[in-house]
């Protein structure tokens, strides 16, 4: 076996220096823009389905809930709005990362000079952005159908954003942590079902075990924030607190996903 002399190695090193790594903002922006374009083309029909599903649930439950029961009506509207976010940010993102991992397609990103968590963040942000119109349409329809006051309807926007971050973090983590793409798909769908039931049904109507489970779903505080805003006077401190906690859970989820992405590439 032969080795190059040390002097020649250092010559080569001088001749070929490392190109700079792509910065966080540039990588994030490129991933976000690319994924948003991709999601717009490939997932638009699914957003339509997600919105239709949530509006369908609103209309279905309108048949059994009286508009005078504001607590239940607000919970249904808030839960249905967040369900659109869960459909895309949790379910589809878990599927997406599960599929990328199974096909070893994450190599594409790992062979580029970028911070890998920017891939998770950029993809999650694009999916979350994509859910906003559906979540807002559902909230508007819900307020109209259940006769709720529209004064604080704007709260649906920050709620959808925070839920998008929280559920995208969870969805990405599921897709990257589970050993098979099929399991990631099942987990994403079960997660979406949990968001549906635990979000739409008011906590007071849930059994104790479900109330405990509810505390572990990262979007539930944001659902509560929207429900509170829709049924009565706004509690700014409560709103900020609930959204901040939701956002923090999302940040933790995304950070964990970034580490899982690194592990998935190198395994």
């Amino acid at each position, binding site marked *: 076996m032969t080795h190059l002399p040390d002097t020649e190695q250092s010559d*080569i090193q001088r001749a070929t220096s490392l190109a700079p790594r792509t910065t966080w903002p540039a990588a994030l922006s490129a991933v976000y823009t690319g994924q948003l374009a991709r999601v717009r083309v490939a997932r638009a029909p699914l957003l339509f389905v997600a919105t239709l599903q949530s509006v369908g649930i609103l209309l279905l439950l309108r048949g059994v809930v009286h508009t005078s029961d504001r607590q239940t009506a607000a919970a249904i509207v808030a839960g249905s709005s967040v369900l659109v976010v869960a459909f895309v940010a949790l379910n589809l993102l878990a599927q997406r990362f599960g599929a990328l991992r199974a096909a070893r397609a994450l190599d594409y990103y790992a062979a580029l000079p970028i911070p890998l968590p920017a891939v998770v963040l950029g993809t999650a942000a694009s999916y979350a952005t994509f859910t906003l119109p559906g979540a807002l349409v559902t909230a508007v329809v819900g307020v109209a159908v259940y006769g709720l006051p529209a004064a604080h309807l704007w709260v649906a926007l920050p709620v959808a954003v925070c839920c998008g971050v929280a559920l995208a973090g969870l969805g990405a983590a599921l897709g990257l942590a589970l050993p098979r793409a099929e399991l990631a798909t099942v987990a994403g769908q079960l997660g979406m079902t949990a968001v549906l039931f635990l979000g739409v049904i008011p906590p007071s109507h849930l059994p104790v075990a479900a109330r405990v489970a509810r505390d572990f779903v990262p979007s539930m505080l944001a659902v509560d924030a929207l429900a509170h805003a829709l049924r009565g006077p706004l509690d700014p401190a409560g709103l900020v607190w609930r959204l901040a906690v939701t956002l923090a859970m999302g940040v933790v989820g995304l950070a964990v996903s970034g580490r899982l992405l690194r592990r998935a590439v190198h395994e």
Partner: protein
Amino acid sequence: MITGTLDGVHAAVAVRGVDKTYRPRRGDASTTGASPVKANDGINLDVVAGEVFGLLGPNGAGKSTLVRQLVGLQRPDRGTIQVFGHDVVAEPAGAPCLLAYLAQDELAVRELSVQLAVATTARLRGLSRRGAARAAADVIDELGLAAIADRPLARLSGGQRRLACVATALVGERPLLVVDEPTTGLDPVARRGVWAAIARRRDAYGATVLLVTHNVLEAETVLDRVAVLDRGRVIACDSPGRLKAVVSEDVRLELVWRDVAPPADPVVHRLAPRALVDGRRWSIRLPQDDARDTLAALLGSPAFAALDDFTLSTPTLEDVYLALGGRNDDLERV
């Protein structure tokens, strides 16, 4: 032990004693009960700066594993890999700053348009938004993809999709291009276009190219040097011409039978043990005199009526591979 190392040259890539074994993962049903697989077994290689170097071998020879380690995606169990003097085993994050890698799967960009896939990759390689758009347009023109630049990769044919992926690897100048089977599924025109694009980068800024292939024709046509891998080991490493000199006294006789070879025929009976059989096709490597006599005997025997076609050709790298003890026979010849 065969090595691909060189003395006194500027090595763009230096691989020393690389071992990699895949062990069954606990809890993974798909690998339960499986034996460990040694994908790379003591690999030593030097790739000279500015050359087009090939890794040739059948599926499962360990080519892609070696490449994934070289581009920092996997760690070897043992050994060192240096790219332009940088240790990519100790610091795998440095590899993407030195090289562009074309992987085998394109799922990450499959739903992007060709233009967006190439421009996004350029931006992720550090180009500005405007620079990335310009570089993407240049590569797209160079590879003849302009007519389909706005179409998502998912809606392209397999060959067009592969070509678009090659464009993502070529965009943004990198001193080392690592391309894993870049021409799989491409028609001959597109294949020549890829080879020409690679050659232009070598001429323009001295790019070094590491090309993984199991296509013998590609290896003979475009490579300066080639390492032949079999079951994780380098069994030969030299220029295609010098490697073929190993078997230059031989020729390859290809026989295509109409149905099945007549086993009772004495010529067929003599050839059968030496033939590589692929359906109706027999391939036999013979010394030149022996081949001449065998062909004359075949033409005069009743077995000739059962022949659909026959060819006599000079040896290829596949013959080298087999002569050196390679046991798989799924190298591609077209």
